[in-house]
């Protein structure tokens, strides 16, 4: 057989059939659902259909849940309440495994999947959410789909896809202090642009990527969608196997050995070809922060707000001007002098236990100057953090310690940034209005966000690391 990439191996293993016109019917190994999947369940109901393989779908409410408490009564928006309830009802009706609000296993669906061992190498996974790319960190081919496709997966356990192309991003070198997985992926997006991975599955490779923990890899793959890619993947290795072993829905006993043997065959063959290759030097990186309204509008924290006058393309110049106007920023302003109004540490990008530990290390050094929230990625992450005393560290520094959910990443549950307010956020999207109408978002790592909370402005975490 010709040499194949990681992505092609997983693709081939799940190909039910290829039509003459090139469309592939892919089998979905495991499917994840959340409160937003309710449209798809509605479509299913309208057609009086059943979930074909309820044992392959796992559900948890995240987008619309309150992060004040996990009582249903805390969900004040009637529409959100209805869809969170609908998930409970639909899961029961169809026999889908649910981690509901009163379950410790509840959380942001992309945090829960890996945590529970639902996410495994070599699987095709889908979810009605674009950040499904997160799961590729363990060597799954995982991509987000819309409501119609979720309905299709529920009904048939398959999805029609056109085969994407393979792209490899190789990151080599030792990361300087203060440079996190978030900075690596932001730097990648800055380099290739939000359309850079369009039509491709990105495989992240190189010594820097290999040296990342699984949680760090999840952060990298999470934002593959912000690079325009269909999915992001990292070849499974011993780090992956060690992470998965013993998790509730991971293979056990004889299956464990058999699965690991198989997973070891997944890394891209030498000689496999990639349609596109990009290289990045980790040693040259600095902590990153976005200044605009797209994740590609990113710079080192030591940089200044760029000047549209330098942009030669008239359309781009106009777009940049309007983005800076929206953001309320003047060209030439040092990013580290931009005052902020609030801080959000959370989301499927950066709300796992390692993220909270890293942020807490900085939080120890002072008191917040602006309202700052920590929203754990899952209820288990929250519990773990509390066992380690991190909640106390955050509280002492003046942070608010919340229940798990998507929260201010998307603002659907009422956790919003007020119009015109500037938020230092560990989430993945700085789109206009993403965190609430008129909100201004600066994306950064948890360490950077914690440092910014103490400074009341965008801060360079390295100034604080010296004191840790």
């Amino acid at each position, binding site marked *: 057989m010709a040499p194949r990439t990681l992505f092609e191996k997983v693709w081939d293993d799940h190909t039910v059939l290829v039509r003459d016109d090139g469309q592939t019917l892919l089998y979905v190994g*495991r499917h994840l659902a959340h409160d937003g999947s309710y*449209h798809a369940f*509605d479509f299913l109901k309208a057609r009086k259909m059943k979930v074909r393989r309820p044992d392959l779908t796992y559900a948890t409410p995240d987008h619309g849940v309150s992060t004040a408490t996990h009582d249903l009564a805390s969900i004040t928006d009637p529409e959100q309440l209805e869809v969170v309830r609908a998930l409970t009802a639909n899961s029961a009706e169809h026999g889908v495994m649910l981690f509901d609000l009163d379950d410790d296993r509840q959380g942001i669906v992309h945090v829960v999947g890996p945590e529970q061992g639902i996410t495994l190498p070599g699987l095709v996974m889908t979810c009605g959410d674009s950040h499904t790319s997160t799961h590729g960190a363990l060597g799954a081919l995982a991509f987000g789909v819309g409501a*119609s496709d979720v309905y299709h997966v529920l009904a048939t*356990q398959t999805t029609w896809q056109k085969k994407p192309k393979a792209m490899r991003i190789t990151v080599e070198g030792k990361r300087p202090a203060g440079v996190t997985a978030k900075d690596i992926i932001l730097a990648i997006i800055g380099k290739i642009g939000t359309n850079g991975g369009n039509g491709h599955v990105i495989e992240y490779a190189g010594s820097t990527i290999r040296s990342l923990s699984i949680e760090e890899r999840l952060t990298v793959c999470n934002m593959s969608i912000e690079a325009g890619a269909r999915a992001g993947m990292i070849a499974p290795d011993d780090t992956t196997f060690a992470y998965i072993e013993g998790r509730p829905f991971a293979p056990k006993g004889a*299956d464990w050995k058999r699965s690991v043997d198989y997973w070891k065959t997944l890394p891209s063959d030498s000689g496999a070809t990639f349609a596109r290759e990009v290289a990045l030097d980790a040693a040259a990186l600095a902590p990153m922060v976005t200044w605009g309204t797209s994740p590609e509008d990113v710079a080192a924290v030591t940089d200044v707000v760029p000047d549209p006058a330098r942009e030669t393309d008239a359309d781009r110049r106009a*777009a940049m001007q309007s983005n800076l106007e929206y953001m309320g920023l003047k060209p030439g302003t040092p990013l580290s002098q931009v005052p902020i109004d609030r801080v959000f540490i959370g989301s499927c990008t950066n709300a796992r236990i390692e993220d909270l530990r890293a942020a807490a290390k900085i939080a120890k050094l002072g008191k917040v100057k602006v309202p700052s929230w920590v929203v754990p990625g899952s209820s288990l992450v929250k519990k773990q953090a509390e066992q380690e005393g991190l909640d106390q560290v955050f509280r002492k520094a003046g942070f608010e310690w919340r229940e798990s959910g998507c929260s201010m990443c998307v603002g659907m549950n009422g956790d919003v940034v007020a119009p015109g307010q500037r938020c230092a956020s560990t989430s993945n*999207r700085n*789109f206009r209005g993403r965190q609430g*109408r008129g909100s201004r978002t600066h994306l950064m790592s948890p360490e950077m966000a914690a440092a910014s909370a103490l400074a009341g402005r965008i801060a360079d975490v390295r100034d604080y690391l010296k004191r840790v």
Partner: protein
Amino acid sequence: MEPFRRHTAIAVPYDQPNVDTDQIIPARFLRRKRSSGFASFLFHDLRQDEQGRENPDFILNKPAYRKAGILVADNTFGSGSSREQAAWSLVDYGIRSVVASSFGDIFYNNSFKNGLLPVRLADDIVRGLRAQLHATPGSQMTIDLEEQVVIGPKGDRYPFEIEPFRKRCLMLALDDIGITLEYEKQIAAFEQTYKGRRPWVAR
């Protein structure tokens, strides 16, 4: 969903690159029932201010474009969130086709499930079309799916590519599930061998 063959309508030039789906429809409207209609949410926070007053500067609010049925965008239209509601709000508004030099992958897929045709044309052509539309506001364009050609306001023709499968589904308003169910035998057979190969996946 409505079949799509040939669509002639007023075309609106939309100059912004990177139009993410959060801009097309803000998150707070996503939980409405599909049947309730999504037209009023299209570009909601751009079309009106917080008091619900129309923003006269927003292009869809200009008299020439109120009845637009085609949108000519820039690059990376529909990036970001997987919300299919972005496609719902466009078709419910009456926009049956978006022309751009590139699209967000998921938005592109979602469009076809809703009778919305995303057309990829080269960057310079898309810019040229927008310039023409700005020069003569309210002019019409035609998207001929059968012939796979975009006809600009001046009658200039631009062929476009589309996968045959998607073309057929759109022209006949075929629903994916109906097609897939015809392959039930293959799916069942796959499931059998998959179970043998990867026994740890099922619960």
